[in-house]
């Protein structure tokens, strides 16, 4: 280092040595004319201004302290031989843009030198303040830790809980002492199936990778279910690695989300149902109109037909049937839109007359087919919980049994009996047909028409999806089996179970 300080200005080498070793910033000024110029400084003085002191050598006191007239005055008084007691001053080091509180002492060395010794008095105070601040900070963080609305836990790198705040008791019902010392993978508060994923996450954390927060359903004390969102991150404290866990209670948000999803699903279903009915109605009404239009035109055309009377009677019958069919369609569409409302009006129903009515309707609807429906004898006193929609259930199943049937003689066997199982008392209906049957892979799909996909294959009626919905509103069920086990081509057996209404006196 090229030190330009005028060493020879300090005659006494001992003083010079002492001067250099003073552990606080010190300066030497010499009178020059009516001013003082800086002729030396020590290592400490240089360090405090980031080793920029050299550029101040030779500077006039009047220039350096132009904004500090107090110092100038003291220097001048000192030069006059006056005793200047040590003074606390606030001094701004412009070269480093830093203010310090200094204890400043002036020593006059005749004839023309002033030794200025400064002591940064706030150093010690700073330490004291820092210590105090640290204490306060620790206290604040402790308060923050304990009063946090979130669970905060410190885990060792293997997942053992070292520390956790008290909020854990509020959320889970268990005291924090039950958690400390345990591995979070072995808490048994959440579904065991989550453990492999949690282990994987811990492994990633250990590797230093960041992991996404995870939502966990936790079973708190007394079976209370709470949803928690867990954030985990690896931290280092005094060169040791830990895992910081912050857990938020998101039960309210999660429940709202679940409700929203249910509501969305409900609206989607309602929309699909509306679309399904709209399309079904448009299709069926056009078929009815086609029947009526063609029948009406035929009435004109057949005027000269030799079998005029017979044909006209047939055509007239078609018109009447179509009018009835149209009325039924409108009524069914209306009923289906009211299904939810009607599902609240479940009452004991004697179904025998409704079944008879459905059979008559089918026979009339498919006059050209040879339909043989046989109802096996059953206890006529059986009563089920239902409503007027039970007629639609019977009609729809019978319509399908006829429509999906290529046999010259359509046979439908209806068997009704009481079933008692652990779920309760039921009346079971079996509709066994000799139709084309249903392949195993389609046995569930046929009840989902208009529900998850918009698909109408043909024919009239509101379909098996509506039948299923009606039965569900009775807490009943429907499923389909092969009429002959293992061979779907021999026809289907639609089975229905509806809760029995046991009449009490």
């Amino acid at each position: 280092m090229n030190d330009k300080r005028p060493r020879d200005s300090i005659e006494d080498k001992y003083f010079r040595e002492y001067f250099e070793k003073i552990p606080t910033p010190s300066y030497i000024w010499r009178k020059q004319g009516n001013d003082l110029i800086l002729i030396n400084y020590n290592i400490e003085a240089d360090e405090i201004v980031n080793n920029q002191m050299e550029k101040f050598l030779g500077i006039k006191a009047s220039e350096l302290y132009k904004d500090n007239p107090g110092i100038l005055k003291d220097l001048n008084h000192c030069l006059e031989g006056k005793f200047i007691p040590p003074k606390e001053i606030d001094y701004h080091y412009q070269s480093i843009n830093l203010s310090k509180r200094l204890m400043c002492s002036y020593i006059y060395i005749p004839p023309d030198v002033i030794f200025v010794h400064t002591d940064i008095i706030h150093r010690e105070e700073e330490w004291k303040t820092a210590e105090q601040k640290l204490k306060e900070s620790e206290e604040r963080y402790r308060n923050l830790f304990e009063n946090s609305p979130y669970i905060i836990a410190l885990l060792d790198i293997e997942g053992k809980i070292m520390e956790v705040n008290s909020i854990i008791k509020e959320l889970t019902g268990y005291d924090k002492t039950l958690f400390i010392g345990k591995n979070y993978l072995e808490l048994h508060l959440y579904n065991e199936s989550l453990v492999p994923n949690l282990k994987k996450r811990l492994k990633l954390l250990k590797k230093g990778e960041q992991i996404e927060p995870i939502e966990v359903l936790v079973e708190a004390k007394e079976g209370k279910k709470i949803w928690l969102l867990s954030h985990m991150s690896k931290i280092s404290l005094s060169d040791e690695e830990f895992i910081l866990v912050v857990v938020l209670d998101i039960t309210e948000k999660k429940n709202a989300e679940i409700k929203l999803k249910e509501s969305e699903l409900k609206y989607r279903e309602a929309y699909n149902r509306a679309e399904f009915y709209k399309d079904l109605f448009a299709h069926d009404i056009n078929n009815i109109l086609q029947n009526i239009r063609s029948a009406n035109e035929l009435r004109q055309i057949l005027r000269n037909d030799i079998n005029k009377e017979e044909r006209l009677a047939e055509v007239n019958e078609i018109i009447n049937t179509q009018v009835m069919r149209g009325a039924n369609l409108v009524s069914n569409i209306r009923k289906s839109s009211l299904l939810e409302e009607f599902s609240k009006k479940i009452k004991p129903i004697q179904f025998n007359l409704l079944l008879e009515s459905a059979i008559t309707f089918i026979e009339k609807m498919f006059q050209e087919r040879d339909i043989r429906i046989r109802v096996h004898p059953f206890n006529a006193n059986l009563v089920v919980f239902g409503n007027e929609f039970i007629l639609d259930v019977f009609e729809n199943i019978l319509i399908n049994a006829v429509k999906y049937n290529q046999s010259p003689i359509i046979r439908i066997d209806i068997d009704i009996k009481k079933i008692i199982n652990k779920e309760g008392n039921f009346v079971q209906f079996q509709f066994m047909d000799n139709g084309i049957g249903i392949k195993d892979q389609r046995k569930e799909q046929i009840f989902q028409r208009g529900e998850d996909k918009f698909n109408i294959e043909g024919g009239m009626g509101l379909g098996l999806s509506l039948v299923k919905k009606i039965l569900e509103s009775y807490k009943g069920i429907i499923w389909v089996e092969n009429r002959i086990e293992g061979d779907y081509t021999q026809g289907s057996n639609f089975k229905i179970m509806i809760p029995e209404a046991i009449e009490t006196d």
Partner: protein
Amino acid sequence: MKLTKILIVEDDFSLQRLYELMLTNYGFEVVGKANNGEEALTMYKEFHEKPEIILMDHRMPIKNGIDTTEEIIKLNHTSIIIFASADKSIKEKAIAVGASKFLSKPFSYEDLIEEINACLNSK
């Protein structure tokens, strides 16, 4: 005189009957009535003398009109298939798979006869 042979494919039984009455009254011969596409295909394959015209519904159980048309066209690409459906949205598809005409229900007796004759004349 040899009558034009027509196959009716329709799952609505009363419509089947009405078409039959209209067509026979005009002078065509209804050679078969199928309740669905599968039945229609079976019948078609079994005909020694294939029908000149097939009147085809779309929404039917087992096999719909589009799929049936596709298969019949594969068997005989000169088949004349007239779609008669309440579902207007499938018109383009029906024509694309080989249907010659598309009648949108409810159509008139006159429309039906006109379309059949137009198809026969353009053969």
